[in-house]
């Protein structure tokens, strides 16, 4: 090995060390948030993909959101606890949309847009809504109790599940924790056209 090779190897090792240390500091600094409900990375399973339509008839795939932290909320107009969480999610969408975060609501009303559109308009919902169906519910484990909310990391893996009304703080901490981890590469962080929230 030449002196030059040794120097390059040293630089590479030093670079990796600095990167690892900065990642560790980010995770363990007093300002970092750790939500109790967020699973460690090695215990997360991939979020099943789906193809559903939004209110404008545009096709939405969950994979469109890869590189972003996604709050996937299964809800219905007849669900009282869902109505409590929706304004929280609107606030979280406003607060975090520029940091790589999106809320995606999956309405489980049998009557579809006929009932969902007026409800969403009444509440001025500022994030994207799609209409779910039995197969969407099935791939997510049944989703009988509403609200059921999945927090999905930038890698498209399920980091947390909340069945029923959860605390606002739990959502906020989970989102913050997942947003602390940067997107793995700029290509993944880039959102395909149409994947953004309804503004």
């Amino acid at each position, binding site marked *: 090995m030449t002196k030059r090779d040794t120097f390059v190897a040293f630089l590479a090792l030093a670079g990796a060390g600095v990167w690892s240390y900065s990642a560790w500091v980010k995770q363990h600094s007093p300002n970092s948030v750790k939500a109790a409900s967020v699973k460690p990375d090695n215990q997360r399973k991939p979020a099943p993909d789906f193809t559903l339509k939004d209110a404008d008839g545009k096709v939405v795939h969950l994979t469109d959101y890869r590189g972003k932290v996604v709050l996937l909320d299964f809800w*219905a107009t007849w669900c*009282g606890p869902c109505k*409590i969480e929706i304004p929280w999610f609107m606030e979280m969408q406003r607060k975090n949309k520029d940091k790589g975060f999106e809320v995606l609501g999956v309405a489980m009303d049998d009557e579809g847009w006929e009932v969902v559109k007026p409800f969403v308009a009444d509440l001025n919902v500022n994030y994207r809504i799609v209409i779910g169906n039995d197969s969407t519910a099935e791939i997510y484990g049944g989703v009988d109790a509403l609200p059921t909310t999945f927090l999905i990391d930038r890698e498209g893996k399920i980091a947390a599940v909340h069945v029923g009304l959860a605390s606002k703080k739990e959502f906020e901490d989970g989102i913050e924790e997942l947003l602390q981890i940067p997107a793995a590469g700029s290509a993944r962080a880039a959102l395909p056209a149409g994947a953004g929230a309804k503004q």
Partner: protein
Amino acid sequence: MLLCLPVLAQNNKQYLTVGELLTVAGKRSAAVQAKIPISVQAGFHVNSNMPSDEYLIPLKVTWKSTGALEGGQVIYPKPSLEKYEFAEKPLSVFTGDFSVVANFKVAANAPAGPGVAAGQLRYQACNDRACFPPKTIEISLPYQVQ
């Protein structure tokens, strides 16, 4: 891919049960009354027939076929107003055991003998943290024309 989340897999679970309906008996043109005994699982509630919010789904009994019986007007009990963590205002609900009454009149030309009226009960249940999809239960009311 199917996730392993057993806590969510409750699709066929009923949160309300309808007890046995006793045979109603009456002569032609007589008024008869059927009692539908209902029991809501502890810790759950169902919306009353007149929910507090337009988006909530009411408990409702409807008749599909009544045979020799006519009418079938349904009388619901007085609901209770309960406050839950997830609602700003108290909700109009039914909880525990209660009965819904259906009023019929035996048809003037009904043939003597037994028959069965068929109906449905639709409800939507919640507990204090979550709500469950609307369900429909089939109801059979045996009757005897004397």
